[in-house]
């Protein structure tokens, strides 16, 4: 190789060296970029695996805690999303605000043992006493039904009327 190189013309030597240097530079810089990307991916992957491993390591404890969380609940008193919808309508009916109510099923999160159903429920133009009665009725269904979010505002144009937005969840135990 050395003999081949040294017997080239000067301009060929310069050209060969420059081409080699350029090629090496481009290759190494491309490697640098890809190496950096690999490093980031490796870090993300390592973090993901570490987090997964922590969850897997805690599986037994979580299973126990989950079983304990629903142990004191009576499956017969738990609510599916449609039953929850019906129950909220019943309470609104009892309180006399059925006509002011609207509801929407937001979703269900489910495991093999139990599920949590979530509904958005709103009451428009209700007075404070009706709202309070509705709230107390709802509170009696705890812990099978619970409030997760609550928003109250004065109705526009009538300071004695209130608009309420609730996010209500119910526990459902798989039989």
């Amino acid at each position, binding site marked *: 190789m050395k*003999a081949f*190189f*040294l017997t080239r013309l000067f301009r060929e*030597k*310069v050209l060969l*060296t420059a081409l*080699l*240097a350029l*090629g*090496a*530079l481009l*290759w*190494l810089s491309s*490697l640098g970029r*890809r190496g950096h990307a*690999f490093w980031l991916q*490796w870090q993300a*992957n*390592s973090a*993901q*695996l570490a*987090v*997964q491993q922590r*969850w*897997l390591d*805690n599986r037994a404890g*979580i*299973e126990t*805690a*989950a079983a304990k*969380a*629903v142990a*004191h*609940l009576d499956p017969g008193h738990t609510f599916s999303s449609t039953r929850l919808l019906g129950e909220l309508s019943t309470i609104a009916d009892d309180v006399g605000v059925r006509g002011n109510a609207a509801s929407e099923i937001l979703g269900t*999160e*489910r*495991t093999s*043992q*139990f*599920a*949590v159903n979530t509904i958005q429920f709103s009451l428009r133009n209700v007075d404070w006493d009706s*709202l*309070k009665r509705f*709230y*107390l009725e709802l*509170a009696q269904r*705890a*812990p*099978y039904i*619970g*409030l*997760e*979010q*609550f*928003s*109250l505002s*004065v109705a526009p144009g009538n*300071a004695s009327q209130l608009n309420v937005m609730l996010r209500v*969840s119910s*526990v459902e135990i798989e039989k």
Partner: protein
Amino acid sequence: MSLLSSLGFSSAATQKVVLLPDHAFFVRVAPLTPGTTPADVAAQVELALEGMSPFPVPHLLYGYFHRPGSGRVLIYAAYRRRFTVDDAAEWADAEAVLPALAVWLGLPPAGARALLVNGADFVTALGWDGRDPVPAVVATRQLAPDAAPEERAAAQAALTAQLAGLPAPAVVPAVTGTVSRVGEEELAFAADGRLARFAVADLDALDVRDKDELAARRRERTRDRYLWRAFQAGMGAVALAAALELGLVGAGLWLKARAAQAAAQAPAVQAIETKNSLASRIEELSANRLLPLEMISLAGSKLKGSNIQFLRTSTKGLYTLEIEGQTNSTPDVNNYQAALRELPACDRVELGQTTDRGGITRFVLTITFKPGAVPAVANPS
């Protein structure tokens, strides 16, 4: 196996050297002025050549041998026209062009000694007195290529006579024109079972070619050496890049396997996460109820005597209540904030965006209650 290869020098490193017959040169050993520096030797050699040669120096091909500290210099010169243009063309790619006798000058110092070198058409005598690395006696005789042994013996006898006072000469065959490079800076000849070594820099003095041309060759050699090293560095970088590329490919496969592992266990982990999250929510529904009306009642209990009206309230998590209100008395906002801080159940109160327009101040207060400090009451007021 040659001496060079037996000494571990690769034949691939062999360089071409042109060894000219000694009889083509007139040879003199000239004394140097005491204290002559190596840099001055070239000038003294030219001066000596002007004195001893019938031709001007530019018409001569000459070289010399000198060692730092030596009191003399060996000079050899030939009339340039003794060699044809074809000869000179052959020299262009040679590492060095030397008289055959110059090879023996690279032998390691060995005290007083004498050599009779038998070439095809010459015999050369070299004698060292042991006090100086430059030979004290150098003489050569030309012979016909087909000279009779008696004729050669007579020449050897005449030359031996010139070596009077030195040990009996060893008769050795002349070296042929090959050389091996030792490293980047040294050349070595196999000479009668011994190794004659020269620094590449010293060869320029020994070389009989035009000195300006040699200087140009030296510059070219230096430039080529740097270019070769740059080329080697480039090759090294390419080799490194290839190794890294292979490593990256391997690492990519390994990472792919890890990603597959993560993807494979993701559903199981997701199920555990969901179970944990739902268990926490059920726990909250059972043990930590959201008590919005109780929080509003508690916050409203501190409104007495102020003109503040609530416009909107909303919960953020289990223990935080955000109140958007208005008043026509701006100081009421700060007074109300201070009053809320006095509540035992209150952890902190933060005043958010506050605007004042047309005499009405609108504000946002975020109240965070201490966990478990808000009691569930049967009839919030």
